[in-house]
Each structure stands twice: as C-alpha cells, then as structure tokens.
C-alpha cells in the first residue's frame, strides 16, 4: 500500500513547493533580462577592455596586459583617487549630519504633517540635476546672488571667491544627495517605538544619553544606507566637479570621462571604472550585510 501511494504523493508535494518559486522567477524575468543586457554585459565588456593595450593613435590593441591596473597606483592617479575620496567623504559626513537632523525633526513633528514635510524635503530632487547645479553657479559666482546680497548689506571689498573651490563641489554634492539621506534616516526614525525613548528616560537617562544609547544605535542602518549612497554617487560624480570645480578639481569621474572622451585611452578608462565599481560594490555589500544583521533587532523595536 505504501509503495503504491508514494509515487503519487511525491510529485504533488514537489509541485506545491515549487509553484511560488516559478511564479517569482517569471515576475523577475524582465528585470533580470534588462539588468543582464544593460548592466552585466557592458560591465563585462569594460572589464575585458581594461586588460588590453592602448593603440598608438587611440584605438585598442588586443594584446593582454596588466599595465592599466598598475598605472592606477601611480602617484598622479592615486592622488586623484584620494582627492575624490576626501571630497566624497566630506560630502557624506555633512549630508549625514544635516540629513539626520532634518529626518529627526520630521519624525518628531505631528504625524499628520509628516508627509508634507517629507514632500518638501524631497522637492528639489524632482528638478533636473544640471539645472540644480547651474543654480549654484548663479549663487556662488563672483558677481552672483551671494555677492550681490553682500553688496546690498554694504560690503565693499573684493567679491569672495566661492565658485570653483573644493567647498563649492562639496556644497553641490551635499545639496544634490541630501534628499536620499533624509529619506533613508527618516524610515527607521519614524518606525522607532516612542516608548523606547520613554523607557530610557524612565530608567534615569537624560535626553542626550537616550539619544546616544537608544535612538542612534537603532537608526544606524538608515544612516549607513544614506551614507553609502552619498559616498558612492559622489566619488563617481563628474558633473558637479566639472561645473562647480571648474575643472580645477579632478575627481575619479572626471578622470574616466577624460580617458574615454578626450585622452582616447579607453583601456585605462576601463580599468579605473572597474576599480571604482569594485569599491562601490564592496561598500554596498558591507552595508547590505549590516542591514541584514540589524533586521531582527529592528523588527523587535518598532511599533506596529
């Protein structure tokens, strides 16, 4: 009897287990195809390109070499990399401090007003990146709005040079990526059970200690997500350094741009691109692992 039943029951059970999987594969198929065609394949091509030699007059010579990757540690290029990392790091730091404070204020506002505040915080994001960056040129220009404003207040001296400085580049990056940080920090702050902070106060902690020991540790995943986002987008950015840095500040993005479009050294451009992508992937992976680890804790500490 058992031998008779077993072959009937087994396939049925397997089918039931598999069907949701099959469905999710089907639903994911378009996205996977899109990613494969437009992300994986081009990245593979670029990676391959990095191992070839530059032709004498700009073309590509198909002989294997590691020279391009070796060139990256050349002091000239390593310097550009460090500058990029410093600018991106400072932009990240400033964006996280401002963004976290803004997110905290929004999460502390009355519940019915929060959607409007969030909308306002994200509003600049809906206009074009270039226009937003040009707006900063209008502001920071030697005879721009800020200088004019100072003049109206009676300032007589030399116009301050603000445009084409590292500060201008950082300002532009912070401004452009701030909405991401606000959103990333707002989510865990809004989910936080307010009774946790009350429990901390009840047990004798001051408001500041409560922030440091309860609120901040529980919202670190949001901060990390926002920070990685700003850093990754900043270090590869080339529009902002080009427009607000006036070409005086070469960042990784500008270097890659130049290799492909002006210096015509595609293999070297490809090699820097791959290093940049590897750094980004590494940071995103660390952040994803940290978020996964914190997921269990957060489930416990949020209000339903």
């Amino acid at each position, binding site marked *: 009897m058992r031998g008779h039943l077993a072959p009937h029951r087994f396939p049925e059970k397997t089918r039931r287990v598999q069907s949701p999987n099959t469905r999710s594969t089907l639903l994911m198929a378009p996205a996977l195809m899109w990613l494969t065609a437009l992300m994986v394949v081009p990245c593979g091509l670029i990676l391959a390109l990095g191992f070839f030699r530059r032709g004498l007059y700009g073309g590509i010579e198909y002989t294997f070499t590691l020279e391009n990757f070796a060139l990256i540690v050349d002091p000239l290029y390593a310097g550009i990399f460090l500058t990029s990392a410093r600018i991106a790091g400072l932009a990240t730091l400033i964006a996280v401090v401002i963004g976290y404070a803004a997110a905290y204020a929004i999460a502390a506002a009355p519940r019915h007003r929060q959607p409007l505040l969030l909308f306002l915080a994200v509003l600049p994001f809906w206009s074009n990146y270039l226009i937003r960056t040009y707006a900063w040129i209008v502001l920071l220009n030697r005879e721009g709005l800020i200088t004019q404003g100072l003049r109206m207040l009676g300032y007589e001296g030399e116009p301050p040079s603000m445009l084409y400085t590292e500060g201008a580049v950082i300002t532009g990056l912070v401004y452009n990526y701030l909405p991401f940080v606000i959103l990333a920090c707002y989510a865990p702050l809004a989910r936080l059970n307010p*009774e946790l902070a009350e429990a901390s106060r009840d*047990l*004798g*902690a001051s408001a500041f200690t409560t922030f440091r020991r309860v609120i901040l540790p*529980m919202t670190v995943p949001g901060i990390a997500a926002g920070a990685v986002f700003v850093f990754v987008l900043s270090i590869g950015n080339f529009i902002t350094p080009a427009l607000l840095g006036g070409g005086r500040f070469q960042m990784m993005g500008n270097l890659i741009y130049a290799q492909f479009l002006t210096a015509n050294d595609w293999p070297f451009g490809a090699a820097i691109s791959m290093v940049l992508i590897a750094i980004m992937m590494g940071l995103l992976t660390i952040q994803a692992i940290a978020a996964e680890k914190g997921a269990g804790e957060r489930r416990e500490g949020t209000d339903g």
Partner: protein
Amino acid sequence: MTALLSIDGVTRRFGAVTAVDRLSLEIVENEFFALLGASGSGKTTLLRMLAGFETPDAGAIRLDGADISRMPPNRRPVNLMFQSYALFPHMTVEGNIAYGLEMEHLPRSEIGARVGEIMEITELSPMAKRKPDQLSGGQRQRVALARALVKRPRLLLLDEPLGALDKKLRAAMQLELKRLQHEVGITFIVVTHDQEEALVMADRVAILKDGRLLQCGTPHEVYEHPANRFAADFIGVMNFIEEGGRTLAIRPERIHLFPDRADRTVEGRVTARAYHGLDLQLHVATPLSPKPLLVRLTANAADRRPVAEGDTVTLGWNEADTRQFND
C-alpha cells in the same frame, strides 16, 4: 500610616477629552494597589503622570510629601513597566537590566551584583546573553519587570503587566508578582482591566470611570459593598432587580436554591444550565426582572438537589446580602 504617594485633585485633558478628572488617591508604603477600569477610563494617563511623561493640568502629585508633578521622568524615584515592555532590542537581557543602574553611575561591581541578583529572582540567569527577540512573551515580561525592579524605586508602576500572556501563565504570574513584591518590598501600582486579577493580587483596588474615581477599597469592600451600580456591575457578576424606583443588587452566589429559611423567596423556571467544574450556573426566569437571574451553586449543593432545564425552582435570599442603589 502616612501616605507614600498622594494624588490630589489631579486633572489631565487632551483637547475635548478629560482623561483624568479631579482624581484624588493616597497610597501607603509597601502597598499592592490596583487601578481598575474599562478601556479609555484614564488608567494609562494616570500612570504616565506618575512616571513624568504627562504633566497634570491641575492638582498635585506628592511623593514622600514633595510635589513631583513637574519633575522630569529621569529624576523621579519611580519606574514604569510599559504595556509593550519597551525592551531595548539592541541590548542583551543583561544589558537591558543594567541600563538603569549605569545611569546612576554605580561602580561596575555593584551593578554586576545587583543585576545578577535580580536575574536569579526572576529566573532569567540562563538567558542573560540573549537579545529580546530571542525570548518568549513571558520571558520578555520578566525582563521588563527585572529592569524596573533592579532600580529599587520608591514606587513601581505596571501598565497591564500580564496583558500579553495566556490565561494559565497569567494566573501563575499573578501569584509570582505578589511574591516578588513581598520579597523586594516595593510599593506597586498595577493597572489592569481584568477585575478578577485586581481582586486576586491587590491589597486595595480603585475603580476608574471616565477619568473619575468611583470607589477605592480592599477587594472585599469593593466586592461586597460596591459604592454604586456601575461599581457593582463592573466587579464580578451581579443580578439587578428594579422595584419601587430603586435597584436591588444581589450576587449569584448569595441566591439559594430551595432555601430552608430566607427573608425573601421567588418561584422561577430554569432556562439554562452551565457546568463550570467548580460550580454550576443557572439562569432562572422570574417575574422580578426582565433578564433571568443568575444563580451560582457550589458543586456540593448542585449534587444534593439536581435540577434540569425547564424545572420550576424556588429561589431565596437574605436582605443582608442585597445592596440598594437609588439611581
């Protein structure tokens, strides 16, 4: 005995709602005090004022004679065990319990000793290194309790401490809470909307309705001598008989079946019969009230005189066992 806590005409309004309305209460040292009331009667609001999370709009709260109504929560020798437990999810059991002592800047060795001691009492030692999400509901509840107890507050406030537990665990924890209170010698104020729980655990019970104090007394007083019709109905089960513009109230266990001697008797028909193990409950339709009277017989009495649905029976009771309300 002088009062440890005195609540004097305290009012708290939220817009148009008066959550707590001119409430006055005195609580003495080492008392196990229960606040009882329906949902929305202001129990949580009162506790939050005692803990310092709400400020009274009027009235004063005095602890050991000093007005604390405006003192911030972290400065009060009062601890609250939250209805949701509010355990810190990123800290271990041990870390949660030690947190309050670290805030007092006690020496490490003393913190370790006191945390160890309270974990022994609450039987949490085996799970000291676990995070709250690795605990059962009952264990979490004990962590929340231990975290508040370890501070040795003058006053411990517990908001529905047993609300999340199943019936059996609840009954066990009621006795456990009482034992703990005895052991640590701290004054407890427990909020509950379970009247039976209040009667079992508390030295005294206060009944709240719409933010006002209806009655306050020992479990025996509020059960046997309810101050008004609402209190009578709220605590335990009560039969009400309207006659001559007043209401007569009598407990089901005070009605006797086929009594030998009674001040008052009435004939009725059994409409329902429910066996509860310890006792037998009968619904008896009588001319006295539109609703059938509820009668509760002990298993012994029920065995002596078996009755079935549809039987005609004689009920009787003594005047001394009834309460009268003129409302």
